[in-house]
């Protein structure tokens, strides 16, 4: 291999550095209207009237749309596949508002400033209803109307065989409670919609994770043929899961169709934080039972989750969480009891890792506590319990294949100077009256595809141009982490062409094949494999055509770089261009290939993170001194980009562990400013170290690749949280461990 495994800047790095790359908010269409939203100011209630007269009186206002003057279009923001039978619970414009930030009206005007001024003039009256803002209030059902139940989903699931004898087992119970997280993709949510009333065609352009998912939702909602709704994925300024739920697209579609002109809807940061989606809150009690030697025997999880204002994906999210529990440790028996409630708070939903990071916080918190109870070194305790090659994921039944968690632990402990750091921390803490240091480890596993939860496949088409360069049609949804470049590398490697000879555009329902979208870390593993297989098929096609030209059989030919040679006539060399010309000019056909790949595996993919922190016991502030992330990645396609993604996940994990939280005040208002929601910035972080273990190759991924985008986030917050607990000798389970909570713990428990 000469390209795969060698670091390359991503495909649009140059355009992004120059400020030339166009994002959806940069698009301008003729006659385009700008849309501003009116959001609910009450957490729960009925909209009784909307008075838009003052707004409409402003010059340049084209229309105000709300539940009293627009057909009642409803949809399900989570629906991403045509076959999902989800209730269209969410109206485009709510009559019953369910949280502060729910959509009430949209104002379209000639420019954004006018639209925003007009939106501020729309008078909305509400008949308030009782609201639930906390777990307790939601459990009481104080926000339930007649016929509604406070528990929106409840189930118990058992995996494996319960231990025959509980006697002699050591039980460790930990309480973990997670706050709401904001994805904080730097690019706010945006959609540009264009409706052609003569052709009855709708085009939506947005940074999104599934063009076909949006098409399904919008076409069904508007009663349009799928073929007349075109969805184009634009350059994405980050997502982390926030752009896989449809919130702006249905609104822009409705307004564009009502107005019969193009519209642009851009949310500002406050609207993104309040009205799009957040990682929802969870409360968990987990009990692990061990043999005295540290062998994990069984696990019990009792989980309470809050869906927020709409159920959206929350039911699936908690079901998925149960499966994600078994992706790292050997758990002979697991029993989970899950309850889901719905409150009048921002909608909970998809977040990077889709419940793997959440369950890892619970697992690692309990594991950390167990290490103390069992008086075992945390690395040794994990070494004893991590899944090894040859073992299976007990939930899915699929082999973990060449999983390398053990190697991650061993390499990490050595590189991080685990034993020395722990010893030095003890000496430091004994001598320091103010600062406390802690070193901790956390492991976490994830998947590479939907399979076997759903059948998962991808299709790719390729055509060779007259000059031998190649156009690829594939529905990729690059989040900004360079999927486009990774795919160019995969295809170029297979065809032995320079990267510049491969052209690849992102998902567009009008041109690229059907795809489920970028979820479940399936991009490289599933779609990338399809691209590799399609390239190999194109190679076969090149040989077939070359054989016809040379009047021989393909087995008498071979590839020598991007050219075909004959075993029988060494002087003959055909370039791809020669072969393409022959196909077009003589055979009257284009050199093309079409391939699909249906996945049949989902190998173990894990990360092991090491964090060293210092807690200021006078202020409660925590500094991350040193950090190492070790990942079992199979073959990395573009290694430096993988490392950069891992470092980004660590940045996000440090924030999630120490400070990031959307808080809800007693009137239902939620944190909606980056001034109050603190991300880790450059001075806050150490030089994060990354090690990639690349010999645990997958059987099905391209060149043995496994996933990285989500799994990198799984162990991050758990490692930092454990390091804080290690520093303080505490057992805090409330995440994030903000200075206030740390001071409270110190006051309660002493240092």
């Amino acid at each position, binding site marked *: 291999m000469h390209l795969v495994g060698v*670091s*390359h*800047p*991503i495909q*649009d*790095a*140059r*355009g*992004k*550095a*120059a*400020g*030339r*790359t*166009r*994002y959806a*908010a*940069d698009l301008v269409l003729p006659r385009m209207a700008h849309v501003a939203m009116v959001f609910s100011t009450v957490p729960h209630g009925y909209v009784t009237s909307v008075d838009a007269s003052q707004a409409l009186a402003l010059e340049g206002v084209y229309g105000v749309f709300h539940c009293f003057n627009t057909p009642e279009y409803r949809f399900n923001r989570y629906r991403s596949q045509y076959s999902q039978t989800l209730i269209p619970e969410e109206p485009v414009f709510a009559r019953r508002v369910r949280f502060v930030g729910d959509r009430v009206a949209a104002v379209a005007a000639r*420019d954004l*400033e006018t639209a925003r001024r007009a939106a501020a003039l729309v008078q909305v009256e509400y008949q308030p209803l009782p609201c639930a803002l906390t777990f307790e209030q939601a459990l009481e059902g104080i926000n339930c109307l007649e016929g509604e139940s406070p528990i929106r989903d409840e189930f118990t699931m058992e995996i494996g065989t319960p231990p025959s004898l509980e006697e002699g087992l050591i039980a460790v119970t930990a309480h973990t409670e997670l706050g709401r997280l904001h*994805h*904080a*993709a*730097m*690019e*706010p949510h945006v959609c540009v919609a264009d409706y052609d009333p003569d052709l009855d065609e709708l085009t939506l352009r947005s940074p999104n994770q599934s063009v076909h998912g949006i098409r399904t939702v919008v076409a069904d909602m508007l009663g349009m043929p799928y073929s007349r709704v075109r969805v184009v994925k634009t*350059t*994405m*300024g*980050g997502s*982390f899961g926030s752009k896989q739920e449809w919130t702006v697209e249905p609104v822009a579609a409705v307004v564009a169709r009502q107005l019969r002109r193009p519209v642009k809807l851009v949310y*500002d*940061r406050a609207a993104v934080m309040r009205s799009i989606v957040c990682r929802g809150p969870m409360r968990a009690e987990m009990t692990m039972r061990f043999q005295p030697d540290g062998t994990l025997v069984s696990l019990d999880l009792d989980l309470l989750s809050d869906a927020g204002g709409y159920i959206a994906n929350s039911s699936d999210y908690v079901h998925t969480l149960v499966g994600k529990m078994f992706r790292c440790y050997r758990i002979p028996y697991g029993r989970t009891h899950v309850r889901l409630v719905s409150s009048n708070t921002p909608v909970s939903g998809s977040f990077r890792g889709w419940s793997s990071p959440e369950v890892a916080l619970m697992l690692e918190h309990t594991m950390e506590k167990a290490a103390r109870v069992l008086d075992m070194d945390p690395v040794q305790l994990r070494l004893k319990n991590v899944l090894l090659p040859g073992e299976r994921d007990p939930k899915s039944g699929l082999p973990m294949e060449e999983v390398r968690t053990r190697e991650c632990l061993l390499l990490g402990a050595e590189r991080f100077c685990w034993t020395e750091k722990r010893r030095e921390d003890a000496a430091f803490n004994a001598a320091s009256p103010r600062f406390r240091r802690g070193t901790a480890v956390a492991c976490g596993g994830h998947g590479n595809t939907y399979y076997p939860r759903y059948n998962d496949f991808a299709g790719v088409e390729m055509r060779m141009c007259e000059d031998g360069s190649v156009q690829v049609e594939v529905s990729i949804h690059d*989040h*900004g*982490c*360079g999927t486009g470049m990774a795919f160019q590398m995969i295809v170029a490697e297979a065809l032995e062409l320079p990267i510049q000879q491969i052209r690849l555009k992102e998902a567009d329902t009008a041109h690229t094949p059907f795809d489920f979208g970028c979820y479940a870390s399936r991009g490289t593993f599933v779609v990338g494999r399809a691209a590799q297989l399609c390239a190999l098929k194109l190679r076969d096609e090149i040989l077939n055509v070359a054989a016809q030209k040379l009047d021989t059989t393909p087995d008498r030919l071979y590839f020598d770089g991007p050219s075909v040679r004959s075993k029988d006539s060494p002087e003959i060399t055909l370039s791809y261009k020669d072969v393409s010309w022959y196909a077009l000019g003589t055979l009257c056909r284009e050199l093309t290939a079409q391939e699909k790949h249906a996945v049949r595996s989902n190998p173990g993919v894990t990360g092991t993170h090491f964090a060293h922190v210092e807690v200021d016991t006078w202020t409660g502030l925590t500094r991350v001194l040193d950090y190492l992330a070790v990942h079992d990645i199979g073959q990395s396609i573009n290694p*430096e*980009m993988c*490392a*950069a*993604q*891992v*470092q*980004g996940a*660590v*940045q*996000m994990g440090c924030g999630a562990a120490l400070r990031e939280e959307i808080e809800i005040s007693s009137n239902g208002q939620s944190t909606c*400013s*980056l*001034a109050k929601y603190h*991300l880790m*910035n*450059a*001075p806050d*972080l150490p*030089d*994060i170290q990354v090690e990639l273990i690349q010999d645990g190759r997958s059987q099905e991924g391209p060149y043995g690749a496994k996933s990285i985008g989500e799994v990198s986030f799984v162990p991050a917050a758990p490692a930092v949280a454990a390091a804080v607990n290690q520093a303080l000798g505490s057992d805090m389970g409330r995440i994030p461990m903000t200075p206030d909570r740390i001071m409270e713990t110190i006051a309660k428990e002493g240092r």
Partner: protein
Amino acid sequence: MKLDFFVNEEAVTLETQPQRRLLDILREDLGLTGTKEGCSEGECGACTVLLDDLAVHSCLTLAAQLQGRRVTTIEGLEKNGELDILQRCFVEEIAIQCGFCTTGMIMSAKALLLQNPHPTPEEIRTALSGNLCRCSGYVQIVKAVSRAADEMGGRV
């Protein structure tokens, strides 16, 4: 108001409102969309531009403050089709992912190097403290600025 100022070394005259944000003037009136809006309140740094060689948030800078002054945006760095050293180092050091923070990040780095041509990694981190990146852990970004400073050798 009649506003006369300079954008990327070109004289610009506009009839505008004194309270209009520089960000909107750049993006909407002048079509310079390389400057990004991420938070509208000076927290994320995506809209950073240079005002007389100092980094400012264009979302917090109003037309009334611009009379006669020099604004440099990301579009002003590239000369004759060639990227500025800083831009090139961001590309080559793989410091760019989603790219939404990149242009603001580069402008903050530019302001730093104009003031301090030989910054330490700590000084770089401090100078970029007002620019948020959600994709990375800032490692490649700091490296890119460091390398650009080395390559410039004191000339900015």
